[in-house]
């Protein structure tokens, strides 16, 4: 059991949790993740480490509700606990000192990019975060982003704040306007966005890392469920990733594989919502 120390609802769908996990707090590095089971019997879901505090012995994660288990996680009360938390998992992000680094983040990816952006800046880079949200009211962690990056530029799909469009279009726009490309780029967010970012940065000739999110079970390299094809080779994202060269990842396969349980997922979520509805009556 890992006790929740702080909960902050960022949007109706997204919550931030600070959780007791002293061992993980001590060792984690930007780019790594944990696996959580909110309740006994829950699925094991991977979540990126957003922050960690050695002294307090806590870690921070941000969860977006997209299906049953993430919904249960988001709904965990502030005075509650998660049943299991294990980590840190995966390889840390490749942090190098190259000059200018642009980080693309969409949706809950904005939270996930925070520690990576911070680490790039601490390594002496000039960091620009291109952050995306569907609409103005869903922009999360604005202050936190400003605190860790040299520049933050927002894009909203509906144009209600900042650039109208997605972060990939924003990147193309920024490069075009300034006539200058970053030395390195990093992308994290929904798969379609990462896929588009990979294509765009390849065309622009910008070396880019993507933090991929295949379906995982154990997260220790035991099941092989998280396999992704990178440069024609099968890799286990939970131990060899989650970050890979974005231009080498087979995003088409990744997209297909993450849809493998679509039918069961929809059923589970509907049943879950029904159960909640019944309780409310």
């Amino acid at each position: 059991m890992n006790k929740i120390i702080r909960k902050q609802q960022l949007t109706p769908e997204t919550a931030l949790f600070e959780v007791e996990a002293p061992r993980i707090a001590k060792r984690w590095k930007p780019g790594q993740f944990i696996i959580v089971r909110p309740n006994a019997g829950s699925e094991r879901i991977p979540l990126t480490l957003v922050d960690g505090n050695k002294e307090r012995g806590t870690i921070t994660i941000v969860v977006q509700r997209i299906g049953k288990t993430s919904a249960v996680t988001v709904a965990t009360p502030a005075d509650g606990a998660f049943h299991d938390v294990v980590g840190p998992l995966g390889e840390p992000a490749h942090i190098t000192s190259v000059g200018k680094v642009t980080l693309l983040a969409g949706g809950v990816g904005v939270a996930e990019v925070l520690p990576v952006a911070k680490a790039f800046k601490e390594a002496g880079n000039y960091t620009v975060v291109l952050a995306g949200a569907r609409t103005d009211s869903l922009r999360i962690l604005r202050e936190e982003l400003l605190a860790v990056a040299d520049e933050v530029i927002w894009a909203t799909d509906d144009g209600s704040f900042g650039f109208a469009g997605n972060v990939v279009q924003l990147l193309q726009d920024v490069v075009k306007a300034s006539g200058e490309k970053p030395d390195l780029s990093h992308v994290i967010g929904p798969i379609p966005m990462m896929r588009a970012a990979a294509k765009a940065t390849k065309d622009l000739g910008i070396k880019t890392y993507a933090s991929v999110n295949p379906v995982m079970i154990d997260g220790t390299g035991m099941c092989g469920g998280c396999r992704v094809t990178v440069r024609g080779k099968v890799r286990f994202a939970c131990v060899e990733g989650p970050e890979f060269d974005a231009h080498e990842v087979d995003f088409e396969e990744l997209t297909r594989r993450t849809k493998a349980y679509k039918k069961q997922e929809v059923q589970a979520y509907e049943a879950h919502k029904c159960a909640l509805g019944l309780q409310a009556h």
Partner: protein
Amino acid sequence: MPPIKRNPKAPRQIPPEVAPNVRVQGGAVEVAGGFTTEQAQVESLRCLNCKDAKCVEACPLHIDIKSFIQHIVLGDVASAFDKISERSPFPGICGRVCQHELFCESACLLGKKLDPVAIGSLERFCSDHHRQFNGKAPVVKANPTGPKIAMVGSGPASLMASFVLAQRGYRVTVFEALHRLGGVLIYGVPPFRLPREILDSEIARLEAMGVKFETDVIVGNSVTLEELFHEEGFEAVFLGTGAGLPFMLNIPGENLIGVYTANEFLTRINLMNANETGADTPVNIGKHTVVIGGGNSAMDAARWSKRLGADTTILFRRGRAELRARAEEIEHAEQEGIKFEFLGAPVALFGDENGWLNEMECIRMKLGEPDSSGRPSPVPIEGSNYRIPVDTVIAAVGQAPNPTLQRTTPQLITNRGKIVVDVNRQTNMDKVFAGGDVVRGGSTVILAMSDGLAAADAIDKALKLQQKEVEIVGAEA
């Protein structure tokens, strides 16, 4: 007391089994029943009570088989159970999953002329009897106050080492990466072979002896070996991290949806209950499953696939004689209607436009010269390719040592992933020992346990010597 009337010529007793058509419907229901008291009596009276009991020698734990059987002969099952417990706290586990035909039963003298004594079933009988009449964990005298020892992984190797060390007064903590204890016994072996109450209650015996368990800790990631020694005060560490890295098929199409490793398929079901309706973790099973391989993982995956309703075939590149699984499980699989296709191997997998597997191409094999495993090598017959429709493929083609710890401990010497140890199960690192599958590659429960036993002896020796040195220093001062 009437004189004992041995009857070695009585037929070997066969434990009752749930009928195949019933058990394939029954999901997790245990297949093999235990001996009745009468059967146990008849079976134990078959034992010759040999002077030079080969069975004891052949058991990697050297359980005093001959004596425990004689206790059953006398009708004193409690003493039989205690006899086993002197060497092993896991008769319920071993009685069910041990490959007796390779160890004790293969050496049984009676087996030279007749069928060997059903030692495995008798072992299980003692455990079941104890559970039935004594309830839970027996009281084991242990008062651990000694040096702290860490076990990495909670598979049979670590569990055995924990038992021995706790018995000798060491304070043992087991660290397990997953959220449940038992290693392959929990995530790999199906409950229809090893009910979870048995596994949990035998682990509870260790807890009652003072062994501490910490789940959700990955040594290497959550805490390093170094930190265990220098910050957490452990004086020796045993690495029983198993062989959890699945081999892939390395053929085109292996990332199609519907292609599983046996580890993923079995973990989803055994550990995450995907077979139960309403479980949060799903599993996809189609109409036609092909399981590739011939070991215990292949049998387990195939039998689960059948239980989930798929027409299931095991495709093995050698012949029946070369299957590596427990004899009982092969028979059970055959009874359950699982088809076996020998001398065939997959070449490629094909899928539809959405990436779902729908067909596989195989090639026929013939048996050639023996290879490094001592078995005849499979040789592909050129031009013999054929295609079959399939919507689930489960690769059970072996596994390599779990690399998590090795990755973060580069100073640890390994050979193709396997941790290298000396005869005392000591690694190249001071006070770090290892055993089980991480040293042997895929092996067996009982050999993992025997490694745990040997390592515990070595740890005991190493630390006692150290204590002596301290005493001498003290005396001089």
